[in-house]
């Protein structure tokens, strides 16, 4: 199945949390399924750090299937025979929405002149898109990982916009450890001489080495130790014995290198800097006077949080923290910790219990 692709320029400049605004914001998005007559069956899907709008369509660069094909489609848990699914590329990204690789008013790429954005800025752009599409109230907003942060931000800041809020493997704030891993990735990019202070767009050399290292480090955080051990153990890659050198002797090294280099073909290094920054700045309680429950005071939305027991990036304790705040606010909330071996990436992989929870919650 393929969605329908659109690009829309928002009619107003986008006000930003860091001050200032983004002129002529472009939003690239895909839709699946029909919007019904009273416009009540729309589900906004929010993508993760390196995700995009191609949730159930082949990726235009890699040709790979959409990132949530197993969840979104006719008869699937997010059933496009019943729901009108909208998934937009976040601002700051590089798949058609305004980001550091986009042209600024002088006709050159923004590069590091692109304003630093926040999760709430991303959501502000998504809400402006919904306004343009004439979608007043969402049947649900759904997101995993950074997508979950956007779902929480939408629920807290645009209170009646979504009737249901589904947050998978996510958090209400970035921890010191989360920030630390992101800083490692950013420093890898900025230490690459080809990064050239971000002005590499017209250059023959791109900061691929730095971006690949950033991806490798991040990829480790997406998997559990059990998953890595199960997949690779200490197995050697295409050889009988250790080489006593620094080639990818181990399968896990080869796998990470492959993940790193594959990523550079589809992702912009500056976008990686901007989006990781937005995630690091995310602290929903801080936005609401320091008390997370206040972010949800008076909400009428139904919430569902899902964590995975093997996810050490956004562990169950982070979801529980949100659930506690929602309970204190008297919100209707469901929470379940699912057992899955894959680590943080479980939300993208084959976990049948997740399918049942998503389907049931959206009913």
């Amino acid at each position, binding site marked *: 199945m393929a969605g329908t692709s659109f690009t829309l320029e928002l009619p107003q400049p986008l006000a930003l949390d860091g001050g200032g605004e983004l002129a002529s914001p472009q939003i690239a998005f895909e839709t699946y399924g029909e919007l019904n007559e009273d416009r009540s069956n729309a589900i906004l899907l929010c993508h993760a750090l390196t995700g995009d709008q191609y949730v159930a369509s082949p990726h235009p660069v890699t040709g790979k299937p959409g990132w949530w094909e197993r969840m979104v489609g006719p008869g699937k848990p997010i059933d496009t025979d019943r729901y009108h699914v909208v998934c937009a590329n976040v601002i700051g990204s590089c798949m058609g929405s305004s980001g550091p690789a986009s042209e600024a008013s002088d006709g050159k790429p923004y590069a590091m002149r692109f304003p630093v954005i926040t999760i709430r800025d991303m959501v502000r752009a998504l809400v402006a898109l919904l306004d343009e599409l004439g979608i007043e109230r969402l049947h649900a907003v759904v997101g995993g990982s950074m997508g979950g942060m956007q779902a929480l931000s939408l629920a807290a800041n645009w209170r009646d916009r979504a009737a249901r809020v589904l947050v998978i493997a996510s958090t209400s704030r970035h921890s010191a450890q989360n920030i630390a891993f992101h800083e490692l990735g950013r420093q890898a990019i900025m230490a690459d001489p080809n990064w050239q202070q971000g002005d590499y767009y017209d250059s023959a050399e791109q900061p691929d080495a730095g971006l690949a290292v950033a991806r490798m480090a991040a990829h480790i955080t997406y998997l559990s130790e059990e998953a890595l051990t199960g997949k690779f153990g200490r197995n050697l890659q295409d050889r009988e014995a250790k080489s006593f050198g620094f080639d990818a002797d181990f399968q896990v090294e080869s796998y990470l290198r492959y993940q790193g280099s594959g990523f550079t073909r589809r992702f912009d290094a500056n976008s990686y800097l901007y989006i990781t920054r937005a995630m690091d700045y995310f602290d929903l309680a801080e936005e609401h006077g320091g008390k997370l429950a206040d972010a949800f005071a008076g909400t009428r939305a139904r919430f569902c949080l899902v964590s995975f027991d093997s996810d050490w990036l956004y562990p169950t304790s982070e979801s529980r923290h949100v*659930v506690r705040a929602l309970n204190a606010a008297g919100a*209707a*909330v*469901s*929470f*379940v*910790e699912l057992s899955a071996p894959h680590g943080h990436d479980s939300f993208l992989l084959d976990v049948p219990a997740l399918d*049942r*929870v998503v389907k049931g*919650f959206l009913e």
Partner: protein
Amino acid sequence: MSLRPDLAAIAEAIEPGTRVLDIGCGDGALLAELRDCKRVDARGMEIDGACVERCVAQGLSVVQGDANRELADYPDKGFDYAVLSQTLQTATRPDLMLEELLRVGRQAFVSFPNFAHWRTRAALMLGGRMPVTRAIPVSWYETPNIHHVTVKDFRELAREKGAKIEREWFFSGGRPVAGGSNWRAEFAVFQLSR
């Protein structure tokens, strides 16, 4: 699907359109009944992830958590009723659990297997072993029931906690029992207020 007798009594006693928290809600049978038949804003807490998954898949608002610790997150009198069905005897501290129940709910329902039922007494007295009966069917070494309680004990605890017993129900073999409840009831249900 018909409800367990203690749950049916609770469901019948709950006023329509109210807010209910079912602690240890299992597969959500009571919550679903209340939602569907009494327009109740029904919430649940359950420790078993597989049960929670089944509840959420039915569209119920259920949080996976340990009632011994996580009831503390709920605001005072946030619910019209707090329900604890056949869970009291599994609590680390049943007295503190009852305290929490009376804090989060304006009224509370508590149901439990009565350890003073004549079958249990007979099994212990004549058999000399920890009773395994149809009401408490699991051996002592694997039962989740760590604090067995009798009708008399519970009345005493309610009195100590300053809780008023509004209503009470007793069952044996799924049928109501009238009189001699501490001997004859396999299960007891109390409705309390404070």
